[in-house]
């Protein structure tokens, strides 16, 4: 059931509190409720559960057997959590942690403030795109500048007018989804602009945009200035060779460049991974704080919704073990990456079970890369995860078959490109 009314009491106890009703949180809640974990409650600050897929009005969600659109997938996950007996409370914002050894969070909603104590907490707060300000793009501050998340909500959830000519900054999968949304809203895509030397999406998709819709892709190009007073009038771009040009437009969509929404994790004093900027977790998704787990794109911004949901289920298993008395694992050595790799998740090696796989990102294209895993100068593992070229902003994976060779008392485990 979904509750939006006042909480029964200002201070309550639940068995498991899940923060965030996106794919990871909903999947964790469904699994936990179905397994009889007791009262499982999901807190969601938005008016509806489902997370980011709610406004991804395109396919590519669900499973191979049950393909779905984003909204369909969000509905499926929500229904499945509710059917299992989890309580989803929308319009309820988690504010902070209650100081002390117990696991209690404060929250507020239309019913007022409340304190919720839980035997276990799962953080599934997701990720967001970095806006223009965080990217330090100079220029004026006109209206008409947004992220994909804002664009998709405006068009697909609110039916708002978004302007007539849009420049899409980025050329990864989400950028092409943004371009589709611009067209769905009846506006023109002036160009996609990427600092990289090629699109970071499938060749078919990139080709379809360029040839099918006539959208130019400006590679090796960065947006160096936003122009216009009141409304955006154009963006100045600069090519790697120094040439500059002004693209006339009234809308600029900054896509990709996702970061974990880690406020709740930071307020709870959780150790963050310097690469992902999300909470550091081991293969079973234990954070540094006993009783607190994390799953989904707060760990790795971003992987597909299906990956987040699978992680939610994985976290549920670890929560059940914890509730049954399995002790909290010692921190264990951190798992770090060397440039051009940017981050890896999970990023702690503990005695708890290894993950099905690790996900990584590279900052530069890698052709037939070999990933090597070292600890204290000792080679633990090497593998060739892909036969082709691995691009920035695309998923790169590493198996966890080497985990048992890690010395739990040793130094950091390093992953590098050989």
């Amino acid at each position: 059931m979904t509750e939006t009314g006042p909480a029964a009491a200002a201070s309550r106890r639940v068995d498991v509190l899940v923060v965030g009703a996106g794919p990871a949180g909903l999947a964790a809640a469904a699994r936990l409720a179905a397994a009889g974990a007791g009262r499982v409650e999901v807190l969601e600050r938005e008016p509806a559960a489902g997370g980011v897929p709610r406004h991804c009005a395109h396919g590519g969600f669900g499973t191979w057997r049950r393909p779905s659109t984003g909204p369909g997938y969000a509905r499926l996950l929500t229904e499945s959590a509710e059917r299992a007996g989890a309580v989803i409370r929308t319009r309820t914002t988690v504010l902070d942690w209650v100081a002390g050894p117990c696991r209690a969070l404060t929250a507020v909603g239309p019913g007022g403030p409340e304190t919720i104590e839980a035997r276990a907490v799962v953080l599934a707060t997701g990720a967001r795109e970095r806006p223009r300000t965080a990217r330090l793009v100079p220029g004026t501050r006109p209206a008409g500048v947004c992220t994909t998340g804002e664009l998709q909500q405006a068009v697909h959830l609110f039916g708002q007018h978004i302007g007539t000519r849009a420049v899409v900054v980025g050329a990864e999968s989400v950028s092409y989804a943004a371009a589709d949304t611009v067209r769905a809203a009846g506006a023109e895509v002036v160009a996609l602009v990427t600092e990289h030397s090629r699109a970071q999406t499938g060749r078919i998709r990139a080709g379809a945009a360029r040839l099918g819709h006539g959208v130019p892709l400006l590679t090796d190009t960065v947006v160096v200035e936003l122009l216009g007073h009141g409304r955006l009038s154009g963006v100045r771009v600069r090519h790697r060779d120094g040439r500059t040009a002004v693209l006339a437009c009234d809308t600029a969509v900054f896509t990709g460049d996702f970061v974990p929404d880690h406020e709740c994790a930071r307020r709870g004093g959780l150790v963050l991974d310097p690469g992902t900027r999300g909470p550091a977790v081991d293969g079973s998704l234990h954070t540094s704080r006993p009783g607190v787990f994390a799953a989904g794109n707060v760990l790795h911004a971003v992987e597909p919704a299906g990956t987040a949901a699978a992680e939610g289920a994985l976290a549920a298993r670890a929560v059940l073990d914890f509730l049954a008395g399995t002790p909290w694992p010692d921190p264990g050595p951190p798992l770090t990456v060397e440039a051009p790799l940017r981050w890896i998740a999970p990023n702690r090696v503990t005695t708890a079970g290894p993950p099905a796989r690790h996900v990584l990102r590279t900052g530069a294209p890698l052709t037939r890369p070999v990933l090597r895993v070292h600890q204290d100068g000792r080679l633990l593992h090497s593998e060739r995860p892909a036969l082709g070229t691995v691009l920035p902003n695309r998923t790169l994976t590493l198996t966890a078959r080497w985990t048992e060779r890690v010395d739990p008392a040793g130094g950091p485990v390093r992953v590098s490109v050989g």
Partner: protein
Amino acid sequence: MTGTVTEAGPLPRRTYDVVIVGAGVVGCALARELARHPRLGIALVEAQDDIGQGTSKANTAILHTGFDAAPGTLEARLVREGCERLGAYAAACGIPVERVGALLVAWDEEQRAALPRLADKAGRNGCPDTRLLGPGELYAREPHLGPGALGALHVPGESIVCPWTTTLAYATQAVRAGADLHLNTAVRGASRDGEHRLTTSRGTLRARHLVNAAGLHADSVDRLLGHDDFTVTPRRGQLLVYDKLARPLVRHILLPVPTALGKGVLVAPTVYGNVLLGPTAEDLDDKRATGSTADGLAGLRAKGRRILPALLDEEVTAVYAGLRAATGQEDYRIAAHPEQAYVTVGGIRSTGLTASMAVAAHVTGLLAAMGLDLGPVREPDPVTMPNLGEAFPRPYQRPELIAADPEYGTLVCHCERVSRGEIRDALASAIPPRSLEGLRRRTRARSGRCQGFYCGPAVRELLETGLSGQTREVRRTTAGKPFEGGRG
């Protein structure tokens, strides 16, 4: 009797006793001061679509003690007086002020040697409570300060304030007490036939007395009246605003020691719980050049890295550039022209926010001296401004408020924790916002780290529908079909 706020259409045909050109912090403060005299007919005219749209919205948001002013200047006196007046006014109106104190941090021997002189000057400016700190005490007070600081001068009275609520409180009180506010009204010409006839973008406006509080454009307006006393050179100040998660990094306003090379860059907390880094100081000739530049931002970050290294790891939630009205003279340019029944209030530099109420009182005195009959005083009804400050309870933190009205517990902007109730109140206020930017300044909605990724369209929906009923997504949710897209 409440005044009217207009944004389009013809202007009233009446002759006002006083017309104030420019609804920045100074113009609004003056309108409020004059509105204490109920017999006066007052109009505040503004070229843009909202109050406080120029320099008043893009400053460092500091309530100065005036410790480093040039002693004996008008600015020094008005800043000192204004600081006291605004401090008291803020407390009465619910404008957030935090007396965090400032540290002038010395990074080399020359700067350290300058500190005693600054303490001396502060004493002459009425700030006897400054104190020199050695590195030990400095780092104890600011543990995240970058390495290499040699000492500091502590100025305990320096405070941070909400510049936006201050301007809005003045204007709200003025309008409620009977002053008219005409927005989108650019003054293009001025003539006199016994009284002032202003030609504006919305027609003619008549006034017995005229006050020029046009900020960056004060020189242009002055020339319309036949004066060529000064030229405003816009001095651009670019600033970076860091996310609330950076706030624990800094406790005081960290000021540079002023040297011959200029004032330099400061790091300061804001009452909203952010951290500011800036400003640059670039003399320009374009009064619309409110853009930031790659060089400017890179320079600020380099300086910020030295002052507070950990700050650079945090997210930037706003980049803005304000233009200060520099006139080539280190003092305000306030001049009475009795023969024209005209007062110029020019060259109000970065201290204008602090000095605003004192400037208003001073100018009111000048108007009275040139023959304006102020009439009796009736103190205007007090205003209580919505609290945007983190040091005071925000609506979402007030159970009694939420119990009375659940809209205050329904958060729309999550990063800044802004409720539907606050947005509704802003839309229903005496001077409502006309754009998302105006709404942002009144409520903080959309000014957090996501910049609208989560809340942008929901906030826009509230602005555009004026909260007439529930938003579309809400309607869908209650209809049991939350995910039907509007289009596509």
